[in-house]
């Protein structure tokens, strides 16, 4: 598994990919801070969207980032489903299996490397988001000093952990779709379709959906609505989904003939 991890890092550490990832992470961060802070309304306005009072709290420094990250689910699911699916369709998985025939170790190592890469990207993006939030805070009369107190920094660390938890959840579900659905276009369609229209439409029409659908549960970890389940319940339910998805993927991967 360690060799698969290191091999995947060689693939990820290309200068071009690193530059693209850094640019995307910073743009996402700055965009999220701008959208969050500049559009925030006072709580008294009772408007939809970000609330200015939230940014005034100690843990307000990373609020814009977590709110924006909660909308990235469909994208992340598609990325991870596609990353696994393309290994099958391009024949690279076949080439790798000729060196590492233990399929589970291979996939676990690759996934671990991608998550390590994501951990760095999320950290960079969070830092950039906090910096951008500081820049925008002045125009809204926010005191940013409170963000850098002990409580504020703990809040940022907690938010980083929650985002990584959500990314890991999306990664496991996406990788499972990539393994279970043999066709890359179909895997992408299933991933995007489910996390996008299906969950969102059902979520609007059927109240309990927020307590049961994996995408909405992951979203609720980062940006809880009043109707969302508690974080413990959400984590337990998501854990069950991940166990089922990973078990199904492991069984299929072990039995599947690699013919492309």
């Amino acid at each position: 598994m360690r060799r698969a991890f290191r091999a995947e890092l060689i693939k990820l550490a290309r200068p071009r990919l690193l530059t693209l990832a850094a640019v995307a992470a910073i743009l996402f961060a700055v965009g999220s801070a701008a959208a969050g802070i500049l559009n925030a309304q006072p709580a008294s306005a009772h408007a939809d969207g970000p609330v200015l009072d939230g940014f005034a709290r100690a843990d307000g420094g990373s609020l814009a980032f977590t709110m924006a990250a909660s909308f990235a689910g469909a994208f992340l699911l598609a990325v991870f489903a596609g990353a696994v699916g393309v290994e099958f369709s391009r024949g690279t998985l076949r080439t790798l299996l000729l060196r590492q025939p233990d399929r589970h170790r291979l996939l676990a190592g690759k996934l671990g490397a991608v998550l390590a890469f994501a951990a760095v990207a999320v950290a960079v993006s969070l830092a950039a988001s906090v910096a951008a939030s500081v820049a925008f805070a002045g125009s809204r009369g926010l005191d940013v000093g409170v963000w850098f107190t002990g409580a504020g920094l703990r809040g940022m660390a907690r938010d980083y952990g929650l985002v990584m938890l959500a990314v890991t959840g999306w990664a496991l579900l996406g990788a499972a779709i990539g393994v279970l659905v043999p066709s890359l276009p179909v895997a992408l369609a299933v991933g995007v379709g489910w996390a996008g229209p299906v969950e969102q439409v059902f979520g609007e029409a059927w109240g309990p959906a927020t307590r049961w659908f994996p995408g909405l549960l992951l979203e609720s970890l980062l940006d809880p609505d009043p109707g969302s389940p508690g974080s413990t319940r959400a984590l337990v339910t998501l854990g069950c989904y991940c166990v089922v998805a990973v078990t199904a993927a492991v069984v299929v991967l072990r039995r599947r003939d690699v013919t492309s």
Partner: protein
Amino acid sequence: MTDTPHPAVALNGLTKRYGGRTAVDRLTMHVPVGVVAGFVGPNGAGKTTAMSMLLGLIRPSAGTAEVLGEPISRPGAYLRRVGALVEGPGFYPALTGAANLRVLATIGGHDPARIPTVLAEVGLAARGDDRYGRYSLGMKQRLGIAATLLGDPELVILDEPTNGLDPAGMAEMRQIIAAIAAQGRTILVSSHLLGEVEQVCDWLIIINRGTLAYQGPTAQFAARAGARLVALAADHAEAARLADLLTTAGHTVDRAGDEVAVDLDGRDAPSLGAHVNRFAHDRGIVLAGLREQRPSLEDQVLALIGGAG
């Protein structure tokens, strides 16, 4: 390399079924250590499926097989000693050729210091830092061969390595395979291009519809087919008369235009040639030429498998 009493590859009743279709049907064959074995058969004969089962990519439906003395149920026990290219090269287009090999060396636990060596062996030393996505088809195939050599393997398995190559590319690939064989490695190479196989392989395995049709030394297979002596007469009428006279004299002949083909029937071509020349001369028939004719490997294989494919 280890000296092993086992054949490099041994299949015993290996079978692969997909629903009602049988791709490989109770295939029993072996590849001795040290040979270049040609694995031939028409498209869809089951060559790639059989090779994929040897490499742990496809699960057999029945039967057993061993690679380098290890059962194929435990590919981890032998794949480090095997280099394989199956179903064409599969590499990351955004990485350079050398970086792709670095990925494989890392995952396979091979020495990355061998990368320049294997790139040079396949003629890609100057192009290792180019992105794989920009390689020509021939270069992609050569990088695939380089990847098979990373672990300094005892056995190299190549599936249709000349697929899609132009004649120059095929000739290069033949040279590369010959060079690999000269390093003392056992090679199992599949192809449906029999001319290619004839030129590089000293062991031949022919399969058709998933079953074994022949296995043994290539020279022995070539010698099975009856060679013939072809006499070229001055015209049609002379050829017809010569054919009649030779038939009357007990020879098995076949005439086409000015040519009369005489079966060797166990005799060597020079002595039969001298005999036919004298026979014709004594009867006033002038011969314009005499030559030995052997059927090509392709003709023989087609005769064996009934022109399938």
